[in-house]
């Protein structure tokens, strides 16, 4: 076992785990942050998506020893009140079906919107290609991302008027 200081959702957390433990299992079993999901364990499905220094990263394929000082952001830390424009849009459009992949979908979408606040359909397809949904909610996910972009615009306009 080795001790690691991780910056998770803005807090410093010390964990004592085997160096080959994937970040996914440190989040889920050690830190009780279970919003990040185990889907395939081989970096294929995207349900374990987190941000490392803002870059969407598969946590099942990232060893804890490799995280270092990078800032880890999980679905639990995306917005304190769980009202990120994507989270609002997801509720408004009733995006989830079984819901299992959705935190990964939202994390990938959040990284996309940060880079590209008004993505086209094609840009969404490209950015979201690494996130599978067994229920097939892709159409609603796409609508959710467009809606989140619009909500973020509205919020910005409001801010501008103040």
């Amino acid at each position, binding site marked *: 076992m080795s001790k690691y200081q991780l910056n998770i959702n803005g807090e410093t957390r010390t964990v004592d785990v085997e160096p080959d433990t994937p970040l996914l299992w440190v989040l889920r079993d050690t830190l009780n942050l279970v919003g990040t999901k185990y*889907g395939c*364990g081989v970096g294929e499905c995207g349900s374990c998506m987190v941000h490392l220094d803002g870059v969407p990263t598969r946590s099942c394929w990232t060893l804890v020893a490799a995280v270092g000082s990078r800032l880890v952001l999980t679905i639990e830390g995306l917005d304190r009140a769980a009202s990120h424009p994507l*989270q609002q849009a*997801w*509720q408004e459009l009733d995006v989830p079906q079984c819901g299992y992949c959705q935190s990964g979908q*939202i994390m990938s979408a959040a990284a996309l919107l940060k880079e590209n606040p008004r993505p086209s359909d094609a840009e969404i397809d490209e950015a979201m290609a690494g996130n599978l949904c*067994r229920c097939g909610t892709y159409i609603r996910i796409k609508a959710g991302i467009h809606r989140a972009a619009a909500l973020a615009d509205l919020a910005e306009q409001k801010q501008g008027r103040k």
Partner: protein
Amino acid sequence: MSLSTTPGKMSRRAFLRNASVAGGGLVLGFYLHAAAAQQIAKPSSISEASEFRPNAFIRIAPDGVVTLISKQPEIGQGIKTSLPMVIAEELEVNWKDVLIVQGDLNPIYGRQSAGGSTSTPVNYEEFHLLGATARTMLIQAAAQIWGVSVDECHAADSAVHHRVSKRSLGYGELATRASRLPIPETRCVVLKDPKTFKLLGTRIGGVDNADIIAGKPLFGIDIKLPGMLYAVYDKCPAFGGKVVSANLDAIKALPGVRDAFVISGTSNLTGLMPGVAIVAESSWAAFSARRQLKVVWDEGRVVAESWDGFAAQAAALAKNAGATVLRNDGDVQRAMASAARTVEAAYSYPFISHTSFEPQNCTAWFKTDGSLELWAPTQNPASGQSLVTSTLGIPKEKITLHVIRSGGGFGRRLSADYIVEAAAIAQKVSAPVKLTWSREDDMRHDHYRAGGFHFLRGDDE
């Protein structure tokens, strides 16, 4: 067609349903049977004594909180939202006042199985009646308090209103009074006219959406109990294979591993198959140790089977005459012999895994008193319970099964192999234990949609 139930006049649909399920199944009024109602209505604490519990599915507390029980397993089909909506519609309760609680496996809820798209059609009329019965009683309670006729009162927005005097009493205020009333006969309960529906037919979000988008613990795989251990279960790659030996001592010496043992299992291919369990302090310790596991298998008789073998067998069989003749019009043999053109085609489709996104998992806690508590993402909790009873001999009444939201079902979670595996492992561990299948387990040990081969020939004269 109005859904209202009038004495002596049964709708055709209701008749068909009653006729088809008589013999132990769901009949109209099942949930309102005195025994079932008393069981749930029996208060287990003083605070519950003042609650209004007209049936197993509705609880109205004096503070106005309306709790509706969702009996069906939620697998992403939305039933945890839609069936409570039916009650809420008839109950005239504001959706925002409603708290929805997933029901454990319990005979008072009747059949609890999500499969074949039957949850709504089977329960729809019954759930109207549940809500309407409670509404009727709340109106009676208000009428008694005001000393007026029930005909002058109506229910809306989680309250009963008296038109003439413009008085209103909220459901919370009526709860205690309503709880003392007898449950009315079904024939005295009038269902709403569908034209007056406020909730049904509208799109409202899934009740778990807020937790899903916030990443809250919700699914079976998210269960965590104090002192819980984590297990994996390695089964023979060939279906039905048995364990000859395994390097258990080496596995037990690995970091974080608490125990490793062989489960001899049964020959039931959808039950407890033989395998090796590894119990560890974390999911990763168990997954990681499994990579060092070496098992000698007696692979059994099916190991020689393969897709190529099936294909060859099918092609050989296709040359024979058909086993069954469905139609034989005219002289087919002669027509085929003299055909100007023959078209032949062969189709096949593979065995396909259901691949529900949340890998199979179950948390089990075998206690010193011989009872077993299970937390299972399942489409059919009763089959899980009965498989555990028949395989491990734990009596039904000693098994508590919590139905947990499933990350997809697709029919795979009608099977209960992962539930009996978790229970068998828990019997040998003095702590709660969560069994998690790897994605590979899920692919290799699915109860696949059967593959098939079709050979077709047509002749044109």
